[in-house]
């Protein structure tokens, strides 16, 4: 009741049912990771949760209250969303971009986020001159800086180098530990295993599974999800076995 509840939600593309009757709840102080192949409706699901697309088939509730009952602005105060969007170049700087997201938010926590993502050094740069990885760090930082209880991240580690992938995952963990609901779409099962408390698997044919990370990230489940052989590794965990598929 006190988290972000998804109750019987469905995603369709044309005639095809991608997600059917999805039921799960992302609770405060936890990281929920959504996994699935391309085109199964992961980003669509996240945009529905952000209130950017109309919710189909079921209901989304925050602390027991349905998304439909919220005004646009009030939902935006509860939910922060990061996703890949292109926008025209009006000459915004990084500092202005962050200011538009979060207002003037200073303090140790904000400094920590910007430092971990190495955004502080980019502040005066125009967005249009950033590389895609730098741009991604700014967008993830902008989403995390917003003082919302719910954080929705659509592939936050995309375009990032290894060190910044690690920083991003560490920040997700820290945000959850601070009490936020963190819900992220990831493509890397190793990253998912490192950060997730709960995992939602989307198969793209209406089926879905949700459960604790340890159960959902079993090699045989992931092998079925992606159609990829998975290899268990020493000390627990698994890797996609590219050596067998090349």
């Amino acid at each position, binding site marked *: 009741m006190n988290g972000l509840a998804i109750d019987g939600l469905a995603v369709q593309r044309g005639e095809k049912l991608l997600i059917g009757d999805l039921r799960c709840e992302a609770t405060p102080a936890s990281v929920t990771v959504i996994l699935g192949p391309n085109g199964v409706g992961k980003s669509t699901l996240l945009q529905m949760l952000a209130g950017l697309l109309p919710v189909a088939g079921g209901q989304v509730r925050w602390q027991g209250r349905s998304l439909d009952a919220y005004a*646009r602005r*009030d*939902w*935006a105060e509860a939910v922060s969303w990061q996703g890949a969007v292109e*926008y025209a*170049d*009006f*000459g*915004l700087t990084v500092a202005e971009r962050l200011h*538009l997201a979060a207002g003037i938010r200073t303090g140790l926590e904000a400094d920590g986020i910007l430092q971990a993502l190495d955004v502080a050094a980019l502040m005066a740069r125009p967005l249009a001159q950033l590389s895609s990885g730098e741009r991604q760090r700014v967008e993830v930082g902008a989403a995390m800086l917003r003082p919302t209880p719910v954080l929705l991240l659509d592939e936050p580690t995309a375009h990032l180098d290894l060190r910044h992938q690690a920083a991003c995952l560490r920040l997700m963990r820290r945000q959850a530990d601070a009490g936020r609901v963190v819900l992220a779409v990831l493509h890397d099962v190793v990253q998912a295993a490192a950060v997730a408390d709960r995992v939602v698997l989307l198969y793209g044919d209406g089926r879905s599974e949700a459960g604790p990370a340890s159960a959902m990230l079993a090699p045989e489940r992931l092998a079925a999800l992606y159609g990829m052989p998975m290899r268990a590794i020493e000390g627990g965990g698994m890797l996609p076995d590219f050596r067998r598929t090349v």
Partner: protein
Amino acid sequence: MYMRLARPAFALTGLLVLTLVLLAVAASSGADWINPWHPGDATSAAIYWQLRLPRVLTAFAVGGLLAVAGAWFQVMLQNPLAEPYILGVAGSAASGAVAAAAVFPASAWAMPAGAFAGASLGIAVVGLFASLGPARLLLAGVVLAAFWAAVLALLLTLLPARALGRAFGWMLGDIASSPLSPTLLLAALAVSVLAGLWLSVSLDRLLLGEIQARALGVPVRRLHLGLLLGASAMTAVAVTAAGTIGFVGLVVPHLVRMLIGPMHRWLIPGAALAGGALLVVADTAARTVVAPAELPVGVLTALLGVPVFLFLLVHRR
């Protein structure tokens, strides 16, 4: 491309001072230099207070309205190189003016009233396509502009030769024969600047694209409708006052953005000042360079604006 000044407030103050100086110089300039405090004789005083100053203020208000409307259109269409006239509103206004002049050749109010009606019609037609989203709305605007140009050409071939001169003069932009008082135009400019400041946070967030703006809580659809109506009404007023004057709304917000950044609490007043100042300079040049004859000011702004526009187009990534 980024010669951003560190302090927008400083840049804006500089722009204000520069604008006031330009206004004063422009009002005194002409066949004879007239000092308003020592006009010499009653005729000079009358020329200053009843002809030159109202004309300068009209040019300032029209230029400011066009530039602020341009800034709104640019953020609404997610295109830093858009302007009101790109949606065909100028063409529809000109068609309305010419049609009215043909039907009521004797009435002095026929052309401005026709222009306002034509601009409103053009806005209504654009409104039908507002749900298309920025990119396709822009395309619809280009096609509509071509349509109104054809309507205009048709009307001009039907117009009696006697009325042609007036219609042409109006189409090329004519500050001198504005049917609207400078006070009214300045009031319209003040309202548009205040509205822009009131909406500035939402406008800023719209710079991040519609989706991100909605994620930040901006009611984008309602804002779009308001911007379309507001900017089009501003265009209609400007067109009614001074005929079609292109490129001010296109180039000015773009240049001001380069100077003081894209945040609207600075951009909107900056565009109003710079747009006003630019049209004052252009109109003063139009009436002094080949005096006692006059150049059409819309032709001057196009001659200046097109190279600047192409330069900006080439030098943007």
